[in-house]
């Protein structure tokens, strides 16, 4: 590894010296702090904001009573800062290490994007200000939309969905609307077995019977099976491409042809668009709708679970059905269509979309440019194939390469070791790695889906590979306990999820209430 070939005394690649058990009074372990709930730290009357007295004590709240007590804890600012700083220190993050969660695209989140999203001209404008006072915001949305259209080759884009699943819903409603418009109500939606859970959930919510399409040996849609399932009551296929096994659907053009021939429409789950940006225009594959997770492909930060944004690109056939709000470029500047007009199917969300995500994504896109986006997807695919090639003999690859942006392994290499995929993942935590996505896609036994992304250096990927290889050797060598007892070096060890679900405790309650409840 380059990073260790120079310098001296770098301790990284050495095995860590085991230190003896140490008990502490506080429960803290050096810089790893124990921290109670915010509710356990409150005191009456204390607050971390200084506010002036209200100008009047008068109340004009009709027949509603003013509230007497809420139950919120009172803390000072230093306490709140410390509390959330400590909580943050219990999290893994891209900023701190490789985060190879397949399908989730944990790539670098540039801080420039954060700074730009916080310009008062973007952050401090209201969605219902007069249109004349938000021309820059509309232009930014329009620019981003223009990039998305050019990169996908599609006819239109609905910007408002709040995340990928919301985008799926938007796209599928558009398909519904188009079918309805031609008086052709259909009943079934075809979804590969390997699909992300949001696909069947979305289709089912719209009242469709969801039918699984099986996969071939090599991890793609079984074309013959698909043909057999297609028919006049199939409304759409929902296909992820590159698919959730990290593979490009080789027959996708043919699939599109067959789907259209059957009078159905083609919804493409674009969560993995990041593998092909700049290299393949989805329009050229024959799709009708695709959501783009700005929080994956265009790097708006995941933020511990959100927010995201899921604009949906649409074909000519679906464009008329796009929901409000929509930005329109006109001769005298930009306007915002805020009411569903014409064939528009309605509205997905209040206001005009996840503006804060748009500014970040646009900043990311302008920074990369056409050449950079192409290089990014190339590097993402290169890194994944490098992992696949380097580990396929040590671990067990689900499919031969080449893969796209993520490499899929199964648990055959753990056979008879007493180590499960979950154990293997937990041992990675002790090594300072967030595990890959595990047990997804469901079609692969003990699946491990590794997406390094383009943000990782070769040095980092090399160390990751070496670590996984070492763990695999260790598992095979019979040291199952190293895995089943893992993690042991994390802020918490394995958590009892069964107990959590059996008698759910979803919120803190003051002791008195708990006692009452127990009575």
């Amino acid at each position: 590894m380059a990073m260790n070939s120079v310098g001296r005394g770098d301790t990284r690649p050495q095995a860590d010296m085991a230190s003896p058990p140490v008990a502490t009074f506080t429960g803290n372990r050096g810089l790893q702090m124990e921290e109670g709930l915010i509710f356990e730290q409150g005191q009456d009357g204390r607050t971390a904001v200084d506010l002036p007295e209200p100008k009047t004590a008068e109340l004009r709240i009709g027949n509603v009573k003013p509230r007497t007590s809420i139950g919120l804890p009172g803390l000072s600012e230093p306490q709140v800062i410390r509390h959330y700083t400590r909580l943050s220190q219990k999290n893994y993050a891209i900023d701190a290490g490789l985060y190879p969660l397949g399908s989730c695209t944990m790539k670098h989140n540039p801080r420039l994007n954060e700074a730009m999203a916080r310009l008062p001209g973007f952050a401090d404008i209201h969605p219902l200000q007069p249109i004349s006072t938000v021309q820059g915001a509309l232009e930014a949305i329009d620019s981003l939309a223009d990039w998305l259209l050019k990169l996908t080759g599609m006819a239109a884009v609905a910007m408002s969905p709040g995340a990928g699943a919301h985008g799926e819903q938007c796209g599928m409603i558009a398909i519904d609307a188009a079918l309805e418009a031609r008086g052709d109500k259909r009943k079934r939606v075809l979804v590969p077995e390997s699909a992300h859970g949001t696909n069947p959930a979305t289709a089912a919510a719209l009242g469709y019977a969801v039918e699984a399409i099986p996969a071939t040996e090599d991890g793609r849609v079984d074309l013959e099976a698909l043909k057999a399932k297609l028919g006049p009551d199939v409304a759409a296929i929902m296909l992820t491409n590159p698919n959730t096994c990290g593979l490009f659907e080789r027959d996708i053009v043919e699939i599109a042809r067959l789907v259209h021939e059957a009078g159905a429409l083609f919804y493409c789950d674009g969560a993995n668009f990041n593998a092909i940006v700049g290299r393949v225009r989805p329009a050229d594959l024959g799709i009708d709708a695709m959501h783009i997770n700005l929080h994956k492909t265009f790097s708006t930060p995941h933020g511990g679970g959100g927010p995201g944004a899921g604009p949906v690109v649409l074909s000519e056939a679906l464009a008329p059905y796009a929901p409000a709000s929509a930005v329109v470029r006109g001769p005298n500047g930009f306007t915002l269509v805020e009411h569903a007009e014409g064939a528009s199917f309605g509205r997905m969300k209040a206001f005009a979309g996840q503006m804060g995500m748009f500014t970040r994504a646009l900043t990311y896109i302008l920074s990369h440019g056409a050449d950079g986006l192409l290089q990014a997807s190339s590097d993402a695919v290169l890194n994944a194939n490098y992992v696949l090639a380097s580990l396929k003999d040590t671990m067990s690859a689900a499919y031969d390469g080449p893969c796209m942006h993520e490499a899929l392994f199964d648990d055959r290499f753990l056979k008879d070791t007493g180590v499960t995929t979950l154990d293997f993942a937990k041992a990675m935590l002790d090594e300072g790695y967030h595990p890959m996505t595990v047990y997804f896609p469901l079609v692969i036994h003990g699946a491990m889906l590794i997406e390094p992304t383009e943000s990782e250096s070769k040095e980092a990927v090399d160390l990751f590979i070496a670590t996984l290889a070492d763990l695999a050797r260790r598992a095979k060598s019979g040291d199952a306990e190293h895995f089943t007892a893992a993690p042991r070096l994390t802020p918490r060890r394995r958590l009892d999820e069964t107990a959590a679900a059996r008698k759910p405790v979803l919120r803190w309650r003051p002791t008195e209430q708990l006692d009452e409840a127990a009575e």
Partner: protein
Amino acid sequence: MRYLPLTDDDRKGMLARIGVSSVDALFADVPEAARRKGKIEGLPDHAGELDVERQMKALAAKNMPAGSVPFFVGAGAYRHHVPAAVDHLIQRGEFLTSYTPYQPEVSQGTLQYLFEFQTQVGLLTGMEVANASMYDGSTGCAEAVMMANRVTRRSRAILSGGLHPHYAEVTRTQARWTNFTAIDAPADVEGKEDLAALVDDQTSCVVVQNPSVYGHVRDLSALAEACHAKGALLIVVVTEVVSLGLLTPPGEMGADIVVCEGQGIGNALNFGGPYVGLFATREKYMRQMPGRLCGETVDADGKRGWVLTLSTREQHIRREKATSNICTNSGLCALAFTIHLSLLGEAGLTKLARINHATAIAAADRLAKVPGVTVVNDSFFNEFTLRLSRDAASVTETLAARNILGGVPVSRLIAGQPQLNNLLLVAATETTTDDHIEALAAALKEIL
């Protein structure tokens, strides 16, 4: 490219290990016809920070920031002062650049704040349980109706005429395409609607907003009783979360589901998003809730910790049988909310709400004195409706030309109802000064 660590040497070495001669070879599965040679046309190449910053600042400069002018715009998004601590903390990489806490051992930070968030939402709304957030209030509203349909096994929802029109549209869109019926009550400008009469034993729920989009504040207890008498649920929507610092919470009025736009605490206006939907209900409906839930448990050493729980409701486990298709939610906005609310605490939130109310009273009283202006409301929290002597949309444009953002014309929200054209929604918060109110009053006096 500053974001890409691989060097050409790296790439060569890696291709060699893979055993292919070029990256193109890795894309062999792409049908020939769909492979693009060279870059996609019509798009510029990469640019440095300075350059991108200039482009983005040029765009930002074409907008009129709320903080730069007297500002009275609300109608579902409110400009509150967010302490600097909030933005500092949510930008810590450990929060900002982490994923959904699927590996709880290294995600206790996220999980614990979600648990705190759920608790805060429960306390604020007066409900028993809350989820870990929805995209925003409007999508939460639609999800609440779908949940009510599941709980009651009925499919007729009644939407109040005081519900924010965007919320109603989102819910109607859901209704239309996921097969339930949404009955719209007429615009309730005066805050006098009585929905109880509409509730029947086909009704799954009544959706009512408090304060209403026109600002009226109402006790909903009777409505709750009417709903319950017919086996329907009462869904209460709150678009200005700060109001919960002053008003009896929906939970105490008998609400079964409370949906709230949480933006007002911790989050900037952001031209409409990302925001954060609060979603709370009674314990007995817990398993019908959409979205993620964080629950308490213990680890292998017996230490308290948190995990995502009850995920058998969710799409990634339950797939086509999930309670909702939501996956990514509003995590970081929820964190901002949680931190801001922790800073406020009981004393702070209560006082903040009082200040908002007092400022709005001052604004209403001052504006009522302007000829051509009538205040519609008897009751309100921090927003009220004005009836102007002429078209409100053109008035707001004229005000904007004078660098005053004077409110939201109702016609912006509801198209095609000319009788609403003279109505203007005016919001005031703790950021509104006497000078701002005076400036608006003076300008209105000249314009009207």
